[in-house]
């Protein structure tokens, strides 16, 4: 490796354009050597530099009275009162999971956990948002099995409950699945740590696993489109070791109780390089690093390999001078490797030495702040118009509506995800008040009366048909889901999964989605405090649906205010909030896709002002203990939401009889499955009806009484009717059946 002469061709192989290479030569005033080229190439990769996305990400509203840490750190932090805060982030591990589903997903979980505990927070819950290809694609069941067991394998072992997520199937993910992992931790205000290499003369300490040749080029792989050749990149997959991560977690949290730590950061993509350069860049310092001191698993590793390795379960700590022994002792107790490998310097230069010989010397700002930023051309594609055309009157009406309804309930997108979450330990740490299966998971914060609600959401069909509206709706759905749990949304993390940004239509999708998310977040006063961008999600030129997943975090001041989405008791009354929204909206709907095999039209409209009042109302009603349940209407409209509220009840499914909120002139199939937004199905005991109606009018919210809980059928006026037990069975078995996981 040492002997490789750097030429423009070598730079190109490293994913650098001719312009970028010229820029490196200009800043250095010479040709870089291979080690330096390696540094630039990973740091300037899309994954690390955000070069195509940065200018757009600035549009997010990131401030708010509760925000203690916005984007730019390892994770965002939001105040929840009483000197406590929640720290959270969502991140993608798409490409590695497609190549090796178990290890890819597992190391994705490992990475996001480190992002959270590196800030001093103890992780208390994780979510996972998964998108796979068609269930009948030959590779899909294999990928589903692998990804789910990888998430389980890592999360269960480290002892952080996985409490929710999404699973979505569509042909557009056949060759490029999405695996987005989210973790939330709890931290005391006075124990927040950041990734700063401050304090000249302070030691830089490496802790965790030894370094091997794992995942070299991982960062560039995550930023390159898949092609036939990616097979060759296989041996670079990283293997996760959740056991070591558990030790690392405990050791770091123990260390953080001392005052030895100046700054700390995990080694994620581009390992040692990105962690050290980013820490120095934030602090405006430089460093000297002796690469030979790095604990190594393999022999004869070159500086290039040591700097670019993506071995897992490693962290960098900048300790206070003179305190290094205390740090080393704690890691020794936990059987982890730890070594002083360098020192903070004042001059803004990174000097890397191997056995006393300088092997690279580069200005830190040149690599970080001065990384290229692109304002890539963005243009709405011409085909978007065709896509948005949908003539509903030409849609054949199904002969048996109840049958279509049952088919939707058992399709893998709607069906019970228990096959998935039963493999996740969702109750460890005994905080899980609402387990997977409701609109959001709710976790108590021990030692307080508080709880947090978390949900991850995105409807990729909506985003495909209109990325701006789709982005808004993702935020609205997240807010509604946490509100339906009795919480107030207080912050959000996003994971933006898109195709190749060098194509103007992808850039248009990307920009529009961000604008949509921003607009909704502003209107709902939900700050974006962290996130992640994953571009180049395509296979052989075919992009995925734009998929900006958002993870919404809500706060309950009193955990006993929490709500669930299922009906509780026979005789309870059923109401629809927002039921005056009666224009048929079937663009991008589940009904259109599953029953008519089409993805077309325009997505439902977003009414942000209404959503805001809706969320405020549910929270108010929850804290007055007026409601027995609340469930937002999403895919499949009223019919599917109603059936879910009936059959997800843990004490056993129960029926309900409701009226049709649409005017009679509306076609019955449209009334059942129209996906108008801003609607929530709530139930309450008969004694609370008057108070509920009054509260709704105070909040100027439209509420209509629809019917009553009870019986053994789910009935919508005289339009359609399902047998509870049969529906429950179809819904329970749908997922495994679609994927061929049945016995």
């Amino acid at each position: 490796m040492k002997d490789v002469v750097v030429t423009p061709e070598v730079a190109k192989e490293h994913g650098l354009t001719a312009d970028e290479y010229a820029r490196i030569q200009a800043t250095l005033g010479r040709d870089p050597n291979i080690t330096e080229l390696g540094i630039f190439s990973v740091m300037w990769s899309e994954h690390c530099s955000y070069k195509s996305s940065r200018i757009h990400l600035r549009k997010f509203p990131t401030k708010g009275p509760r925000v203690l840490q916005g984007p730019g750190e390892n994770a965002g932090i939001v105040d929840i009162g009483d000197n406590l805060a929640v720290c959270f982030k969502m991140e993608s591990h798409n490409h590695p999971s497609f190549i090796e589903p178990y290890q890819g997903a597992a190391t994705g979980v490992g990475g996001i956990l480190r992002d959270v505990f590196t800030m001093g927070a103890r992780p208390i819950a994780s979510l996972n948002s998964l998108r796979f290809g068609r269930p009948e694609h030959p590779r899909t069941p294999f990928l589903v099995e692998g990804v789910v067991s990888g998430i389980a394998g890592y999360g269960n072992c480290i002892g952080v409950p996985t409490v929710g997520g999404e699973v979505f199937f569509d042909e557009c993910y056949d060759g490029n699945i999405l695996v987005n992992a989210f973790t939330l931790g709890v931290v005391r205000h006075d124990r927040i740590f950041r990734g700063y290499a401050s304090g000249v003369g302070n030691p830089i300490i490496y802790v965790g696993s030894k370094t091997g040749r794992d995942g070299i080029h991982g960062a560039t792989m995550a930023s390159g489109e898949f092609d036939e050749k990616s097979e060759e990149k296989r041996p670079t997959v990283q293997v996760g070791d959740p056991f070591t991560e558990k030790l690392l977690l405990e050791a770091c949290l123990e260390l953080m109780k001392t005052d030895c730590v100046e700054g700390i950061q995990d080694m994620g993509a581009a390992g040692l390089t990105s962690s050290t350069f980013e820490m120095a860049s934030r602090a405006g310092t430089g460093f000297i690093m002796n690469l030979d001191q790095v604990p190594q698993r393999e022999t004869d590793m070159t500086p290039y390999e040591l700097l670019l390795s993506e071995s897992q379960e490693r962290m960098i700590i900048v300790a206070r001078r003179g305190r290094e022994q205390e740090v080393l002792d704690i890691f020794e107790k936990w059987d982890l490797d730890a070594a002083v490998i360098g020192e903070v310097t004042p001059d803004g230069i990174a000097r890397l030495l191997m056995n006393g010989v300088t092997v690279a010397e580069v200005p830190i700002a040149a690599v970080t702040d001065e990384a290229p930023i692109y304002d890539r051309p963005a243009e709405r594609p011409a085909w978007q118009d065709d896509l948005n055309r949908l003539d509903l009157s030409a849609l054949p009406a199904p002969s048996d509506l109840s049958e279509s309804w049952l088919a939707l309930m058992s399709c893998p997108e709607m069906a019970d995800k228990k096959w998935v979450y039963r493999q996740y330990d969702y109750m460890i740490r005994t905080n899980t008040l609402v387990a997977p299966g409701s609109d959001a998971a709710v976790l108590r914060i021990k030692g307080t009366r508080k709880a947090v609600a978390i949900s991850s959401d995105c409807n990729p069909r909506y985003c495909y048909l209109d990325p701006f509206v789709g982005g808004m709706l993702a935020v609205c759905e997240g807010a509604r889901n946490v509100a339906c749990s009795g919480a107030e949304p207080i912050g959000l993390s996003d994971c933006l999964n898109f195709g190749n940004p060098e194509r103007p239509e992808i850039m248009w999708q990307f920009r529009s989605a961000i604008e949509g998310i921003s607009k909704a977040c502003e209107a709902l006063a939900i700050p974006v405090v962290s996130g992640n961008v994953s571009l180049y999600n395509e296979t052989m030129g075919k992009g995925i649906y734009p998929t900006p997943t958002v993870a919404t975090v809500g706060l309950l001041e009193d955990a006993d205010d929490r709500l669930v989405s299922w009906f509780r008791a026979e005789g309870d009354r059923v109401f629809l909030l927002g039921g005056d929204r009666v224009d048929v909206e079937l663009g991008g709907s589940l009904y259109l896709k599953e029953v008519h095999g089409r993805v077309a039209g325009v997505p439902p409209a977003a009414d942000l002002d209404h959503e805001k009042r809706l969320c405020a109302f549910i929270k108010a009603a929850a804290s007055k203990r007026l409601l027995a349940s609340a469930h937002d209407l999403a895919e499949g409209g009223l019919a599917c939401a109603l059936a879910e509220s009936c059959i997800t009840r843990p004490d056993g499914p129960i029926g309900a009889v409701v009226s049709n909120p649409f005017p009679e002139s509306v076609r019955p199939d449209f009334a059942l499955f129209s996906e108008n937004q801003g609607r929530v199905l709530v139930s309450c005991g008969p004694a609370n009806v008057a108070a509920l109606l009054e509260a709704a009018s105070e909040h100027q919210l439209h509420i209509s009484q629809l019917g009553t809980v009870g019986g053994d059928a789910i009935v919508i006026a005289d339009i359609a009717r399902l047998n509870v037990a049969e529906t429950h069975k179809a819904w329970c078995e749908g997922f495994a059946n679609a994927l061929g996981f049945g016995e």
Partner: protein
Amino acid sequence: MKARIYVTLRKGVLDPQGKAIQRSLSHLGMEGVDEIRVGKFMEVTLGEMTRPDAEKLLDDACRRLIANTVIEDYRFEIEG
């Protein structure tokens, strides 16, 4: 017909399990084990078939199911 399949981790792939075992052995005072890599070993009973057919079957089985060739190597032996 009997066969044996060996599945081992590819060179350079982290073996956390082997690492943990090796460390425990030395905690037990059993020094002298420098490295240990853990793989799988399978004993297979095959139906009546020719040797070439058995070879093809085993190779297929390993490639498509038994070994994860992204991180593992495999080999097999047919008895007799």
